[in-house]
């Protein structure tokens, strides 16, 4: 039945495709280099942002490949690479209960407080 849910533990990549099992001789296709997620800071003062993934044997190669694949037009001043298998991700199925604590606390937002118009700069 097609109902089987695919489990993801590593960011956006299904767990059996992170290259972690690459040495297992199960099939011929399992000889890929590990998968890495790439984060790029586009300029000083901004956060690193996820841009995609790539395959590389080690961090140094991942870094050089990330430069060639994701910053050919000076899109970045800093790059992070992390092996996909090291990323742990929240699960959309649990989103409702997981984020529930924030749902009923409207007093955390400034608009909750009604102040006289005379109060400026607040």
């Amino acid at each position: 039945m097609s109902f089987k849910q695919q489990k993801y533990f590593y960011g956006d990549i299904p767990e059996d495709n992170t290259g972690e099992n690459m040495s297992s001789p199960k099939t011929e296709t399992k000889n890929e280099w590990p998968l890495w997620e790439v984060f790029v800071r586009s300029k000083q003062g901004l956060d690193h942002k996820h841009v995609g993934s790539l395959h590389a044997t080690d961090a140094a190669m991942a870094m050089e490949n990330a430069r060639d694949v994701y910053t050919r037009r000076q899109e970045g001043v800093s790059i992070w690479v992390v092996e996909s298998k090291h990323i742990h991700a929240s699960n959309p199925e649990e989103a409702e209960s997981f984020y529930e604590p924030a749902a009923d606390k409207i007093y955390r937002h400034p608009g909750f407080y009604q102040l006289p118009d005379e109060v400026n700069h607040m």
Partner: protein
Amino acid sequence: MLVFTLILLFKRQTMVIQDFERIFQEKIDNEIKIEPKDWMPEAYRKTNIRQISQHAHSEVVGMLPEGNWISRAPSLKRKAILIAKVQDEAGHGLYLYSSAETLGTSRDEMINDLHSGKAKYSSIFNYPSLSWADMGAIGWLVDGAAILNQVMLCRTSYGPYARAMVRICKEESFHQRQGFETLLVLSKGTKEQKDMCQDAINRWWWPSLMMFGPKDSESTNSDQSMKWKIKRKTNDELRQQFVDMIAEQIKLLGMRLPDNKLQWNEERKHYDFGEINWDEFWNVVKGNGPCNKQRLAARNKAHEEGSWVRKAAKVYADKKLKHKKEKIA
């Protein structure tokens, strides 16, 4: 009793699937992107894997007709531009493979399918690039046709695919402009250069129109893809948009498109154009185009000849890791 329980269980199960499907379609109708970890129908996953990997393969095979001219480019400037363009195509292939991998397929699987001939790529790359003017015609017409499709795909419903397309579209514009400029220079040159320019346009025009795929009335996957917003425009809509654009641009080149039926239709506010040779289209799709065998052979050869590099890199990385561990110990 047991049978009854089973039926009940089954009923519950199918209801749950329908619920999932309803929520999924509601997201799409409300323009909420589908992300890798969200529930999606298997057919949606498969369609996207097929389409994204085909798209990636097209970028990769697309390097071959142009790679052919890197060593023959007429100047250092043109050579540098062509190298940058071919490098972009490789990059585009990588963005796309990376987004297909979020759907649960592996890089090796996709590459194997390409090399075995199981997976398709855009038929346009099964035509030969015979002269330098072809580099201009490919940039202007082939990339121009691809861009119309890709601009639409920036709004496709699967998040990682849409994001890859945004990145690609930013880079494609250079490809099309450099192509037009290449032809523009030729169109102002000697008689031989002008002839070369017209000849390239003659040969690439019809295959470019075929890039949009079969007519809407004959396209099998179209309805479902529109409903899932994988596609947002039909093949015929995009093709008409392309004809309208190129029919105007060619005036600036002082060249003509090889279609006697091409004519502005005041009533439709569109250009009318002649019938595509669909026999040729299906023939190339089925593997009998001028270069199908050559392209696949080139891909397989490159992959086999790179095999030792991939192995060596892996062994080297393992060795470095082992040394590092020994040092710590």
